[in-house]
Every structure is written in C-alpha cells, then in structure tokens.
C-alpha cells in the first residue's frame, strides 16, 4: 500500500487546448521529426491528415510510406501497414514517375508482401487486362504525340503524292500515306484507350491482408478454374471503376468485382 501511495504521487493534468493549424510544410517537417524519434503513429497521423486535406505531393507520399514501413517493421505493426506503404509508394510514382527511390521501395515492399503471403498460401499472379496492358505500354501523352506525328506524316504523304511528278517522290508519298495511316490508327487507339482508362477508372491499392471480391449483392464471386483470382492480395493494384455507398467496383486482372472502400486506398493522381 505504501508503494502504491508513493506511486500515485505524480499526477499531471492536461487541459483541453485549441488545435493550431499548420502549413503543409510544417506538417511534413513535424512528421519527419516524429518518424526520426520513433513516433511512427504520429508521423502516419500527420501525413494522413495532409493527404485528407488534398495535398498531393510525391515527397509527402514517400514520407507516408516510410512511416508505414517503420510501423510494419516494429512491435506496433498493424495489418495492412505494408499495403498502405505500397499505396503511398504507388501514389508517389503516379505523381513523379521517374522517382527511382519510390520504384525501388515499391518493388521491395511488394516482394515482402509476397514473401509473407507465401508463408500461408500460394501466391496469386494475375495479369492485367490485355487492353489495359497495351494502353499502359506508353504514357498517354506519348501515345497522343505519336498519333499526331503519324497524322502529320499522312498529310505530308498526300501532298507529296499529289504534287510530285517524278516516280520516286510519288512512291515515297504513297508509302508515307500507308504507313502513316496504320500508325495513326494504332497510336490514336492507344491514346483513346489510355484516356478512357484514366477517365473511367482510378488506381487503388489493397490495404488489407486479403480482399475478397464479391458480386453486386455482396456475395463472394465463385473461384475460377486454376488460380484463385477472386481474392486480391495486400499491396495489389486494382482499378476502381464505380463507387456506390461504401463499396466500389474494381477491375482486378480480367475479373471485375466489388470491394469495400475501406479495403482499398485510392491513389491521388495528377
């Protein structure tokens, strides 16, 4: 009892005080300082608030990823930490496609998720939909620029074919028209597909250990023969095509299904 009485000695009372507003730069600096002293949760809270406030910055995404990785590596690890780190890194790459650190980090995080997952069950390999895979071969702007160049080649070919009197320039014009038309159609289709995918879907990353795809009524999708493509693993990128209440319709490989919005993190894109 004596020890207890001594122990109760130090009583400190905190009073409620007003919360001060910080600039994004101050929040970033405070989160970085918190991360350095080991306050992972504080760093995460600060960076999540920054994201909620609409600050789309690749450095902020990188710091958020670092905070989740620090927590995932420590005693306070929570399910989904690696998925959220992967989401933050994917977001950093969307915002700054040439960020080598984010790209390398994402590879390691995805490998770590796969390593932890394979302890429990077989890994899931899902190829993206063919149209999306083709459209994502080049950035949308590159598709568009190439299509314009091809269109220009066709126009020049028409002029040369018409104006030239000698056989060689006329042949050159004909070749330019033929090849240019084919390339214009191909690049134009690529630009259109990339634009449609960008406008009609939003990338997201699964942030739970495993997300089960369901149909519109909320019933689990039946497993197809071969690989189980109805469970989306943590850290996997899906494309959200529709949102309804607390759920979203996602494209996962060649499968479409519904997930809860809390199971994914929508990525900020430019």
């Amino acid at each position, binding site marked *: 009892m004596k020890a207890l009485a001594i122990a109760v000695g130090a009583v400190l009372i905190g009073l409620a005080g007003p*919360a001060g507003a910080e600039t994004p730069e101050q929040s970033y600096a405070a989160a970085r300082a918190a991360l350095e002293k*080991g306050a992972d*949760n504080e760093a995460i809270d600060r960076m999540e608030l920054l994201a909620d406030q*609409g600050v*789309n910055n690749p450095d902020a995404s990188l710091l958020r990823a670092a905070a989740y*990785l620090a927590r995932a590596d420590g005693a306070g690890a929570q399910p989904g930490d690696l998925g959220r780190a992967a989401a933050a890194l994917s977001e950093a790459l969307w915002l700054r496609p040439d960020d080598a650190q984010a790209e390398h980090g994402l590879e390691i995080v995805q490998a770590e998720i796969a390593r932890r997952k394979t302890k429990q069950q077989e890994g899931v390999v899902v190829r993206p939909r063919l149209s999306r895979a083709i459209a994502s071969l080049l950035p949308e702007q590159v598709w568009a620029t190439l299509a314009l160049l091809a269109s220009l080649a066709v126009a020049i070919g028409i002029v040369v074919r018409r104006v030239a009197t000698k056989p060689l320039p006329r042949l050159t014009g004909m070749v330019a*028209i033929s090849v240019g038309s084919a390339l*214009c159609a191909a690049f134009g289709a690529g630009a259109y597909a990339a634009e449609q995918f960008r406008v009609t879907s939003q990338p997201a990353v699964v942030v739970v250990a495993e997300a089960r795809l369901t149909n519109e009524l909320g019933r689990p999708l039946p497993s197809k023969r071969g690989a189980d493509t109805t469970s989306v693993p943590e850290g996997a990128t899906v494309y959200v095509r529709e949102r309804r209440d607390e759920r979203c319709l996602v494209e996962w490989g060649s499968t479409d299904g519904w997930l809860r919005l809390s199971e994914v993190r929508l990525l900020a894109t430019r």
Partner: protein
Amino acid sequence: MTRARTAAVAGALGVLLATQVAVADIKLRTEVTPRKVEIGDRFSVRLILSSDGRENVSDPQLKVPAGVRIFGQQVTQGSVVAITWMLTASRAGKYRIGPASVVTSNGRTSDKPVTVEVVAQGTLTDKQPPLGGQPLDPFSIMRGFGGPGFPALPGFPGFGEPEPPPELPALPEDYKVERASDPIAFLRATAEPQKVVVGEQVTLSAYAYGGRGDFGAASFGEPGRDDFLAVNIGEDDDTRKLPFDLDGQRWYVSKIASYALFPLKAGKLKVGSMSIGFSGPGYSTSPQGLLRKSRPLEIEVVEPPLRGRPPGYHLGDVGHFSLSAQVQPREVPIDGSISIIAKLEGTGNLPFTLLVPEQDGVHFLEPQLFDKIEPRRGVVQGFRTFTYVVELTKPGELDLGEITLPFYDAKARAYGVARAALGKVRVTGSAKTSSAAAKAAKAGPSLKGLLSPPAKMGPNPSAHARYLPSRVGFWLLLFGLPLSALLSFALSDLAKRWRRRRAERRGSLASALDAALTQLAEHARAGDTAGSAGAAERALFLAIEKATGLKGRGVLKAQLADVLANAAVPRDVADQTAALLGRCDELRFTGAAVELASFSAEVRDACQKLAQRAGPGATGATP
C-alpha cells in the same frame, strides 16, 4: 520483466481498489432478456451488483459458447452497478451463457450461468421488439404505463381510470403540437438538432398522444437506427401523462422514449419510425393495442471541417473532453514496465482510443478500459479510464511526452486537443544486446530505413496535367491534318473540272452559233425564206444562251426584251434581238417579202453584239 509488469498491473488495479480495503457484502444477479429468441435476434444479459457500500468494479467478463457473439457492453454505475452485454446467436439451440463475472473489492466475483433458447427465424409468433443495438438498459421504456391487458381498476392510478379534470398544468414546449394528426391517438417523434457532424449527439424523443383518456402501452417498437450508436437517455424523463386541450378535445401526452443517437457516418441518415400500441378504454382491447407509428426522420450528417483538424483526429470524436494521467513508478530497471492510468472525462460519445506518445525504447501495450457513462439532463457524459502497461527498453531519463485526444467541439465549432503530460521516468541499468541479435535474426529485409524522404517537402506537381486526348482540338488535329490535305486537293480537282466543263460548254455553243449563221447565209443566198427564218431564230437563241446562260425558247417573246435587259444585256440590243425573233415568225408563217441578205446581216450583227456582252472568251459570231 514479468515481475515488474505484474507490479505495474497490481499498482494500476490498486489505484482503483485503494478505497476498498474491507471485504464488502456483494450480491449478484444475472438476467437474460428475452429468454427465447430467433437466430440473428439481439438479446441482452445483465449482471446486477448490489452491495452495502459504494462498489468500484472492473474487468467485467461474460463467457459465451460458440455460436453466440457479444457485440456490445455497457457499465452503469450508481447505487447498484449494472453491466449489460448485448448478444446475438447464429445457430439454433439452447445455450448456457456465463457465468458473468467482475472484479470487485472482494476479488473476481461471478454469478450463475443463464440459459437462452435460440430458434429458427420465423418461429416465434409473439416476438418481442428487437433491441436494435441499444447499449443501455432497453427495458425501462414501458415505465409509467398500465400493463397491457389489465382491466381498469377503479381507484388505482395508471389503469385507465379517468382523472378528475382539475386545473391543467402548463404543457412543456416540446410536448406541444399545433394539430392532432389522428383523432384518437398518435405518436410523434422529434430529433434535435437535425443537422450535425459525425459523432455529434442527436436527441431523439417520442411522444404518445391519446385523445380518449388515459392510456397504456401494450407494445412498443423501437426505431431503426443502423447508422447510429444509440444510448437510452430516457431514465430521467418525466413519464407522467400530461393532459391538455386541443381543438376542444382533451388529450393526454407522455414522453415514452428518448435516445441519444451518435451518427457513425456522413450523409442523409434515416431514423426509422417508432410504434406504440395504445391500450385502455376507448383505444383497444387487443393484446397489441391500437397501433400507431411515428413518421421516420432524416438527419443530415456532415464531416467536421478539414480546416484546422489536428493530426490524429478520428472521425466521430465529438464532444468536450479533458484528460488526466497518473504514472507509476517513476523509476524502473531496464526492460521493466510502468503503469499509466489516463482518465478521460467529458460530454459526448467518449472515444475508446487515445493518442499515446511514442519514442524508441517506450512501448505502450493495449490498455484496459473502465468507464462510467450515463446521461445527465439529456446529455451523455461520464469518464473512461485507460490503464496502460508501458515497457521501457532504453536506459536513462526519458521524457514520456503527453497523451492526447483531438476532438471536435460541436458547440464551439472548433477543434480541441485534450492533453495529459506524463513527465519523466528514470530507467536504470544498461541496454542489453539481445534485442539487437533478435533483430538480426529476424527474417526479411529491414523496412524501417528503406526510404529516405527529403528533409523538406518539394513543390507540388502541376495541379492537373493537360492530357492531349482530353482536348477536342487534339482529335480535330489528328483527323484534320490528312483529311484537310485530301479535301483541299479534292476541292481543287472539282474546281478545275467545273471550269473545264464550263469552257467546253461555251465552246460548243460558239460552234453551234457559227453553224447556224453559216446556214442562215446559205438559205439567204438560196432565197429560202422559211429556212432563213429557222436558221436565224436558232442563231439568235444560241447567242442569247451563250451571252446570258438563258434558254430563250422558254421565254415568251413578248417578254424577251425585258428578260434580256434584266440579264444585263443593253436595252437596244435586247430590243433588236426581240424584234428580229418577231420577224423570224413573220417570215416563217406569212412568207413576207424580205431582203434576206440584209436580214441575215442584221441577225449576224445582233449575234455579235450579244457575243460582246458574253465577254472576250465568248467568240464565235464572227462575220
């Protein structure tokens, strides 16, 4: 380390039990309501603890078998302590639930188990109203009413006896209505306020109005409120039936239920209708009573503003709170533990988590919770204690920082942060290397230092890249370039072809005109009057067409001069041409004696004049 932790836990519990040193006389009673439910229905188990003195309890536990799930727990502490667990069963059968137990000043005390029977859905015919996730005592809603089915007993209040009409008391404002929505009885539900932030209290009240004298409640249906956390705050309500007059009719009104609803998400959330079965003389004698329903309500719920939101704020933490904390001991050996008891007090829906300070070498374990939350004057308030065991693995004097709770004060429309400073602790001894070795032995890469974010945040990328395919101009340019080249050449070709045809046509008219004039000359030389007239007429019409594009044969000869004049042919030439055509008719039909040579010369002259009108390109009528 185990010893230190045990000491810490013992210390924490000791704080709670410090005032309870003597063995108290404690009585326990466990109730289950209802005793028979369908699968998926909610039921409650209530442990009631009474003692001869004020008893502090902690760590209530209820053992449940497989197939039964606890989804809510509430501790109400007053003269008696009541712990209510809300349960649901997923399989049919008879379940033995419990024993329920609690730690008191006498140690852990438990009662006898209770039994509940779970049957298949749709089996129960006289099903009681669902409890609907209500965490507080849901069984006092019928208070103040006569029992259903009981006959009216003269002299006993509450059983339908008509009261003598003395002076009517003033009706509270919230009971008043402008008109009766039903001539016999009706139920009115109100929600205040109707626009709130997520987590802010909405007070839902229900008033029963009877126009046939005093009434009882034969049945009661709770409102559907899936999107809210509900707390019954009707304990302190005035349950008397108050008489008042409306439109010449005597009415009785009673507040039958009050709930504090805490919205769980943003949006337009629905509160379902409540129902009550009015019983008593003048209403209904059926077991269900005269059923009346209130109108469903809609509450507009928004999120608190993002501006000024403190880091770590959890949606739903709304109210006004303060924090205090006790730390003990202040000096521990390395790898030892201390106990921190944080007490959160205030009004609103008290959160279940606090933000604890983190740093290397300090590890907070999951806290044990104890609370006493109850409504006072319609507002949910109370306290909740969080007992943490904190492991310390780094030697030296550590400043623990502060425990915080960011919240949104809906009344002040501002965020606040409740804080409790923890002060410093001294950790004695030296760091051991075993943890480092354990880290080294851990499988997988080290993720903590994987990324090196820059010291300062760089500029944001441009708000929205202007993607080319999203612009209409891109597609116009893409298809327009080759198409415009093609089109320009095609138009050019068309223009050329048109010009060529026009020239060809003009050339053919000229040759026809020449031929007609030649024939005219031949007929004139031969003295052939009719032939000369025909050739002259043909030559003149061809000359007109060549000069003006008009088909002269389609125009009345009487109007021809005017038509030609309108087609920019000089008036004298037009008149001459019309006159010559008239003379052609005379020659053909009357055979008048005409000097054919001079007539031929006049026709040729007229054709020449018309040809001049047609421009330099229109040649042909040459002498």
